[in-house]
């Protein structure tokens, strides 16, 4: 009887923990398992996990490069307000798609972000890259050694991360994303598509919060 009660208790606790884990992850980072995922006319199947509520009425698709200083400017000057007013409130979510064109270290940094995604840490890794960006393109701040050091600082399983990065596991994924950008006429980074219920609007460059607000508010 007691043995049955213990087993039942363990099962109940496991179910509760599972539900709690899935709820907490769905509000912040949803790993994409849908290979046919699109937002508007853009295939985001190979892009990042969705940041925010996947059922939000607006999706911001950001095309970016981890070595681009304008992307750095947008990350630090505009994104915090968008996160506060739209993503955390469930009005919008964000998908990052790589347009890694600036230097040799750009595609490698993009691949590293997906190696971090394998361990459920895409957005933490994304953030650490933009917080660690240095002004010089290919200046060494995003070389393989540093990319591994960032992973280590996040507490990722280094054996898994290193084998993923060194094997070039996500090389084709990044190339696919670059092609998506070209196909949609993105001619520089950062580039955005604001995808709402009634269509999509393109924004080029690290534009201020007021521009995003003007476009997104009528879509809600």
């Amino acid at each position, binding site marked *: 009887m007691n043995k049955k009660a213990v087993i039942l208790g363990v099962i109940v606790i496991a179910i509760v923990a599972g539900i709690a884990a899935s709820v907490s992850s769905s509000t912040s980072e949803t790993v994409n398992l849908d290979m046919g995922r699109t937002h508007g006319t853009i295939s985001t199947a190979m892009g990042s996990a969705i940041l925010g509520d996947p059922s939000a009425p607006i999706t911001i698709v950001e095309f970016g490069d981890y070595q681009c200083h304008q992307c750095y*400017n947008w990350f630090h000057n505009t994104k915090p307000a968008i996160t506060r007013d739209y993503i955390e409130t469930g009005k919008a979510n964000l998908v990052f798609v790589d347009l890694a*064109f*600036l*230097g040799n270290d750009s595609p490698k940094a993009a691949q590293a972000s997906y190696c971090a995604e394998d361990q459920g840490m895409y957005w933490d890794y994304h953030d650490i890259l933009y917080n660690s960006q240095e002004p*010089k393109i290919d200046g060494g701040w995003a070389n393989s050694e540093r990319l591994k050091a960032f992973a280590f600082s996040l507490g990722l399983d280094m054996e898994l991360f290193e084998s993923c990065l060194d094997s070039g596991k996500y090389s084709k994924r990044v190339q696919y994303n670059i092609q998506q950008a070209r196909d949609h006429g993105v001619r*520089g980074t950062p580039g955005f598509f604001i995808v709402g219920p009634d269509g999509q609007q393109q924004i080029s460059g*690290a*534009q*201020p919060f007021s521009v995003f607000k003007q*476009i997104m508010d009528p879509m809600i």
Partner: protein
Amino acid sequence: MIQSIKLVFSNFIYVLLSAIIFVSMMIGLLIMSEYIFLAPYIVSHLPSGTELGFVLILTLSALSALVIPMNIFRINILKSSKQKMSGGVVGSIIGAVAGACSCGPVGFAVISTFGSVGATATAFLTNYEIPIRIMAIAILVVTYFTTIKSLKLECNINS
């Protein structure tokens, strides 16, 4: 020095030329460096950490607007050699090119067209954008003083 400036800009054509150079260069560089956006709305934006770049663009535009008309005056009025004009033009071009190649459309087009060579050139111009702009300003300052000196000399000779 002031006499030389007065001499050139007493003619309205040179004031107009200076204004056109200043406004077109400043707006062009501010658009290329993403301080001004034209679409979907016309909006200006000065992100924190980019103030030095903004000041350098203003300085570069102002110096170009001063130096280039003075050199054109020398060529037109005093029939001087065109060689001395090159400093102002070179300074302006160097300053403009430094900011153009970045992660914006110009840099993207250069990399797409010229591949790895374009990427290397873009990386160089982006990495050294501020020093290059400072160098361009230095060239314009030297050209300015050379032009002033030359104007003084040539005007005395002519008069």
